């Protein structure tokens, strides 16, 4: 099933700093909820392992994350696909854009994702809420990581 989500976050750091952190495996790993492993394969590719729980389905996803359409320090597309074994699969991407605002950066994102298997069968009512929470948690963590005072 398909899912769409978008949002904006105001960050305290300038776009250049945010851009750097958005390309930094350690920052991303610390920010992605449930992320156990994020290994850089190349400048634009990572191997990831993350545990996600949606309703009755808890799954450990293994997959690849790619960065494309790089336009530093303004925007990129982050996409990935993961297999969660019998729980099913998830794949999707987000367009992330940065714009200077109020001395910091306004980060806006637009997510398109698809899930399948048991996740779709059992969790579909919960997916949007769960995905929103994952996104909120990610940006809360990410904001803390890029905060120059933090």
């Amino acid at each position: 099933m398909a899912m769409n989500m978008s949002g904006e976050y105001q960050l305290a750091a300038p776009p250049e700093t945010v851009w750097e952190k958005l390309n930094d495996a350690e920052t991303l790993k610390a920010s992605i909820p449930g992320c156990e492993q994020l290994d850089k394969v190349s400048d634009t590719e990572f191997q990831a392992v993350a545990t996600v729980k949606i309703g009755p389905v808890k799954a450990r996803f293994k997959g690849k994350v790619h960065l494309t359409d790089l336009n530093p320090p303004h925007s990129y597309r982050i996409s990935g696909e993961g297999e969660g074994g019998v729980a099913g699969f998830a794949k999707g991407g987000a367009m992330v854009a940065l714009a200077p605002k109020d001395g910091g950066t306004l980060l806006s994102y637009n997510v398109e994702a698809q899930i399948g298997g048991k996740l779709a069968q059992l969790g579909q009512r919960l997916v949007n809420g769960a995905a929103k929470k994952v996104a909120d948690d990610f940006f809360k963590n990410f904001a803390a990581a890029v905060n120059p005072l933090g």
Partner: protein
Amino acid sequence: MSATGIGASVRRKEDQRFITGKGHYTDDISRPGQAHAYFVRSPHAHATVRGIDTAAASAKPGVLAILTGAQLAADKIGNLICGWMIHSKDGSPMNMAPHPALAAGKVNHAGDAVAVVIAETLAQARDASEAVKVDYQVLPAVVDPAKAQAKGAPQIHEGAPNNTIYQWEIGDSAAAEAVFKSAKHVATVDLINNRLVPNALEPRAALAEYDDGADSLTLWNTSQNPHVARLVISAFVGMAPEHKLRVIAPDVGGGFGSKIFIYPEEVVCLWAARKVGRPVKWTADRSEAFLTDCHGRDHVTHAELALDDNGRITGMRVKTIANLGAYMSTFSSAVPTYLYATLLSGQYEIPMIHCAVDAVYTNTVPVDAYRGAGRPEATFVVERLIEVAARQLGLDPAELRRRNFVKTFPYQTVVASLYDAGDYNASMKKAMDIHDVKGFGKRRRVSARSGKLRGLGYSTYIEACGVAPSAVVGSLGAGVGLWESAEVRVNPAGTVEVLTGCHAHGQGHETTFAQLVSERLGIPIEQVSVVHGDTDKVQFGMGTYGSRSGAVGMSAIAKALDKVEAKAKKIAAHLLEAAEADIVFQDGKFTVAGTDKSLAFGEVALGAYVAHKFPTGEIEPGLKEGAFYDPTNFTFPAGCHICEIEIDQDTGRTEIVAWTAVDDFGVVINPMIVEGQVHGGIAQGVGQALLEGAVYDADGQLVSGSFMDYAMPHAENFPSIKVDTTVTKCPSNPLGIKGCGEAGAIAAPAAVINAITDAVGHENVTMPATAQVVWAAVRKAKAVRAAA
């Protein structure tokens, strides 16, 4: 009528066992050394399988084997088949695509099995399945039957261009065209018959055991027809010859059609049991049941009814696209053709009918027979059309029905059915009286005073049960005959075992079949046991579906009882030293006519086995007779259901406030059981009309895949249902029985939607008519009225 004979509301003998947890279902059975199977299923609706890596999973604790489709093919295990050949209108045979029990290189629906893990425990099998790595190349999917044949739609099977299985028709399209050109009035409906999940209480299960000493296999499974399962698994799948394969379907907790079919899991368990050398058990969990039990219905239909100025129907035209899912299940091809279009005349004299049906593949679980199988779909078309026509013509819907009812029998419809007996006006009149239709206007005004919309809907349905005779179904493409068999074994002390080829999974055969024996032999039902569901015990039989067990199965028993009685009379004549012609058998006693010399049934039974007092050269010892019975026609139960509903305009919530069902089932064996069947059928029909809907998203994910998202009817959805009957005896079987198992599910959807559309004043209400659907229809109707 005796206390336990035909017509008595005898309490069900089997219920004590069922309601105290003493039933024996497949999952209750365990064999020494039993291992467990867990299936690895595709999360994708449509994908190429590029590879399966089982190395890591094989090393997990407790794993005995991990088997894939490639091994299945290497072992030459054959495909599952659809056993009813349908030819397209151009004469070409249906496009039956290969259906391997484990996917061979490609998956075609979410839940399609790609591998099976056999392990010591279920938990170990499940854990190891997590480590099976399947490399999928995902392909675009199609799930909507109306889009399956479109240009550019994903192609599911190589041998089925445009995903088309067949393009079938009945009737003369040119003649129908002419009727519609000159028609005075035409009523039109566009209908979606929603897709349903059967949801039997007991999920499917299979336990297979291989005896290498005897080189034979035993399968315990949740089947409505164990002999048919054995035949298909032997003759087509090629697992083992029939005499080396025993199939036992013990207590089965509900079927509704979904357990007729031969499924991949039972084939895989048999194959794995032989391969691993251990008994292998699989029991579906509820999620698997949603994903893999055959679904029901899923039609998209455009239909028209032509009428003259007097409200007489002059013709009908129907175009249906039927979704059969990813593979053709066992009887799927027959459901939208011979079980559907042959009922489109309803209870009416219709001089011209044309129906065209396209059956299509989609990336969804296979669709096959579900309670009513084709007949609910037909009734929904006919009864929605006649209701819409009555409203257009400004006629009372009961009056329009009355004008067009078939009144003389036998009646040959133009769609091949020969209605043998009925009195449609009698059942409608009785239903209208019981329901107090006359008082409806007043009740509607009372509802209006509290802001509620009240509606009344009729459904004067007809169905065809006990599909037969075998020669006719054979000429229509069936791969089997649809007779039934029985064996009556009288034991020396006078107790009786009835062996039947039918299978009980909730119907109460242990009671009703015993009632027939009680009636005929004059013995209490406690002295009768009914044996079914084991291919080693029972002679070949066709199983239970399509409300056939009474009309066909009991007729076979009656025929065997005739033979028992005839032989017992001969023996009684010797025992009583009288002429055979003078022996009268009545109330369980053999009497020499005009004397007080008599013997009880049990005494004659003993005499038959002792065999001291008759010449065994002329009369064989023992008292056991068998019969195969092939009916001369289908039976045609029919009736009138009236549904009355109230709608809360603000929320769109529909409440059923009254329901009357008057059915003509012919001779009724047990009125209490019949009433229960009617209640259950109505509950499932109301479920379809108001609540249930299997929903796939555009990618082929089943998003109504649990009871969180798939709404089943609850007791609170129903008023007290008034059930009554009218009786015309069925002339095509010796007992006059018609069958009652599906009537409620066939009648109910049209009755509910006719009531809702009556209340709302707007015809476009789709099923399930959830609060949201009805709320939108109320708004739409108001907008249309405001614009007028």
